[in-house]
């Protein structure tokens, strides 16, 4: 970007999606989507089932390849980059159907999250002591801190699989935070949680935001969305139908139609 206008640069989003298209066979899951996520925001992506939300997240994180359009993160074009490279750029994520390293301990899960921030390779592994040992200790300490941050330090030596559902979601968040992402993608973080767990999640999301991490979240729980979001983008049939603050979106007639009137009343 060579724009001399500093104000315009500040306006530029951390994540800029332009004309994104993703097709599966004959079905267009995401159709010419435009969307901007501003740095520091909690940005919610909502819409009815099958509206292309998870597909959008999968394209951003590099698990799917877009069929058209561009996704830029902090000025870097993401198209064509593999998922691991996108993670290294500073985009972390969680999954709708939890994807933990089930047989490994909770602590190991979070330590693996440090992968992009650490260096030890095959050769380094062979020589104990020195840099390898220091890095190993630092990784463990940082992982413990993050587990304390999500209130799960007591469970660190259990296998991830053995935790209750709500706690597994928190381990996923800690694992993603371990990479120190600037943008964290959360795919239905409250799915399957009981009301107490959801309330705790709201608190956790606010604390993550205070760390300076930008959040892009997909969520069906409208109460949660309306409570935590700074901005909301509404998708329907893979297209952007509304965007704005929570109150503004809740009043938008297109949105109300898309949700058949009912769901948003909860807000």
């Amino acid at each position: 970007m060579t724009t001399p206008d500093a104000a315009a640069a500040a306006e530029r989003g951390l994540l800029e999606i332009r004309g994104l298209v993703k097709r599966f066979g004959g079905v267009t899951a995401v159709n010419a989507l435009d969307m901007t996520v501003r740095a520091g925001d909690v940005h919610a992506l909502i819409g009815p089932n099958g509206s292309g939300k998870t597909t959008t997240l999968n394209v951003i994180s590099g698990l799917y390849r877009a069929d058209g359009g561009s996704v830029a993160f902090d000025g870097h074009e993401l198209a064509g980059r593999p998922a691991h490279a996108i993670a290294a750029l500073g985009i972390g994520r969680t999954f709708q159907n939890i994807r933990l390293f089930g047989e490994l301990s909770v602590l190991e899960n979070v330590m693996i999250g440090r992968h992009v921030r650490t260096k030890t390779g095959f050769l380094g592994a062979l020589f104990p002591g020195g840099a390898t040992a220091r890095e190993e200790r630092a990784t463990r300490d940082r992982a413990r801190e993050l587990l304390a941050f999500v209130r799960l330090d007591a469970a660190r030596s259990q296998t991830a699989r053995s935790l209750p559902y709500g706690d597994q979601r928190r381990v996923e968040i800690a694992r993603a935070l371990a990479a120190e992402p600037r943008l964290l993608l959360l795919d239905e973080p409250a799915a399957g949680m009981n009301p107490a767990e959801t309330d705790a999640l709201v608190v956790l999301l606010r604390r993550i935001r205070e760390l300076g991490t930008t959040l892009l979240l997909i969520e069906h729980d409208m109460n949660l969305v309306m409570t935590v979001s700074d901005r909301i983008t509404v998708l329907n049939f893979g297209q952007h139908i509304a965007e704005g603050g929570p109150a503004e979106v809740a009043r938008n007639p297109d949105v109300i139609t898309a949700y058949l009137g009912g769901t948003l009343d909860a807000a």
Partner: protein
Amino acid sequence: MNRRVLALIVLIVAVALIPAVVHSDYILTLCVTAGIYAIVVMGLGILLGFTGQMSLAQAAFFGIGAYTSGWLTTHLGWPVWPAMACAMAMSALVALAVGYPCLRLSGHYLALATIGFGIIAQLVLINWKDVTNGSDGMTGIPAPVIGPWTFEHYNSYFYIVLVAVLACAYVAWRIKTTRVGRALEAIRENEIAARATGIDATRYKIIAFVFAGAYAGLAGSLLAHTTKFLSPDSYSFDQSVVFLVMLIVGGSSSIGGAILGAVLLEFLPEVLRPLKSSYIMVYGAAVVVMIIFMPRGLVGLFESLRARWRRGAPPPLGAAAAAEAEAA
């Protein structure tokens, strides 16, 4: 932790005393072969146990190592040690060439491609007579020499194998307990999550495959310089299966399990002698039974028995939400 180190040292010393106590050549041969197989199986453990990728080509890499070492020493007159290093490098290189196209794809493809590769490799060993001497086999392979000592007999070769096993186990243990090993295990547990966490899964899988190849190559060379005779039937698909069974029985993600499985199954045919060559049938049944009832192998069984002995109270479940509410 210190008690475990002590136990390990005692175990190694005890094993090192075997040639002093056991005078049966036959038993010593079995020990040496078991050690050599343990190296192959540990390599497979890095690939299958740590990384969750299936290979049925371990016998082929084993054969490549054996024949490379045999050819370099008999045809070119190389000393044994550089030939051994070359054998290891050759198997690793071939593994890289095979792994590169196949590991970009998901697991089944690798399993199949490795079977196919194993068949091709064995056909080459049989038909490339200029180098391998075909089905007649390669003879006259020399024993290793250090200074005045020639490691001709099993009771001295035992120590070469022991050192190699320990070195390989050490490398595997270092890999397992550091960043690289965690990345491999992440790929095994959930490849998509691993990639989204920043792990270059393809690269790590290829490296794990190369390690498996290098281990098998080293073991093949060790075999060549002790049996001094090579024939293509020792590197068949069935042999790859035997390596797989050794790993599954011992415990696939455990280094001790790999060694235990190799030793156990090398001595087991003695027990199953009445079944003659059909003892492999028992292996087949054992694999199915183990994978259904004891997926973590014998080592996993020991571990869970021990955990049952000294189980402390686990932390209360679902505590995080409560802690969060309290803090807020």
